[in-house]
């Protein structure tokens, strides 16, 4: 890993990494999916339009709609946000699949 310090190499191996500034809009979109009910409703009604509303580029929209975790992580998405955004979408789309305590 030429040009990458030991410290950086170690940081690249972490499961939960610093969210790069270039992925801010993608992470904001994932955050909104998990934490903003109104945005989640808009996404469920029209995923592509909602993703574009958040300013995502074409590849990010494609990978978000496909639920392609690895591709989203490669774009700089935070792993936890990818996980919980997907879970919240599933809870809304398939509520009867859950037992609520």
């Amino acid at each position, binding site marked *: 890993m030429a040009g990458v310090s030991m410290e950086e190499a*170690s*940081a690249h191996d*972490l*499961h*939960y*990494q*610093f*969210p790069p500034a270039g992925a*801010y809009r993608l*992470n*904001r979109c994932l*955050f909104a999916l*998990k*934490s903003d*009910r109104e945005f989640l409703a808009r996404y469920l009604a029209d995923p592509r339009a909602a993703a574009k509303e958040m300013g995502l580029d074409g590849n990010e929209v494609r990978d978000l709609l496909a639920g392609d*975790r*690895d591709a989203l*992580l490669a774009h700089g998405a*935070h*792993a*936890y*946000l*990818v*996980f*919980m955004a997907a*879970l*919240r979408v*599933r*809870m809304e789309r398939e*509520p009867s*699949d*859950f*037992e*609520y*305590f």
Partner: protein
Amino acid sequence: MALVGAFACAHTPQLLARPGTEDREIVLRVHEAFGRVKHRLEALRPDLIAIVAGDHVEAFFLSGVPAFAVYVGTECAGSFGHYGYRFPIHEPVARAVLEQGVERGFDLFYTQDARLDYAFYVPLHFTMPVPAVPLVPLHVNVYLPPQPTPRRCYEWGAALGEILRGRPERIALMASGGMSHFPGTDRYASPDLEWDRGILERLCGGRGHELAAVTGEELDKTGNVELRTWITVLGAVGAARAEVYCYAPSWHHGNAVVEWPV
């Protein structure tokens, strides 16, 4: 004398909303342990619960990422799926923690209106005593690097314990989180149960202080970034020997419920 009990509770959302992929028996075992915590809290009769949890990028998105935060409003509220929740905050103790914490050299963030993440809610959904008591919610950054070091969490917990012991109220302290899990990563189905068991063994032996020396990298590698909340509570309980109410690992999560006598 005011610290009357200390606990650590898992908070995985599948304990609240169980998908079909989750073993119901394991979920119910954790609920049973939560029930024991609730009965203990009712016997201990705390005036409040100081709960240490790691916000899941809910209250604190990238507009502001505090290492440690204290909720000092009159109340706090949040939602998860169709669960909505609201709790009163014990303002005198919250302010004492904030002011005395800063006085002791911890540059704490505070909030009067941040949302309350489900990390706080899930254990309280199951363990809140009757009659209910107010909270002092205390956030530790566990998911957004760079997180506070385990040693710093332990030191903050030690200061927190001193502050709480100096109060006239009866206070229960609770850590929410852990143990091993890797949400959103390719290790999701491979929690490090062996590491968890080694930690629990140390805690049962009263060796919790050793966790101050664990590195942040080791926490990440073992799926235990959330153990920072436990380490904070360990700073407050010192060498107390843990009683493990349950360790009920699922296919993706080391669910544990623990009490420390104080």
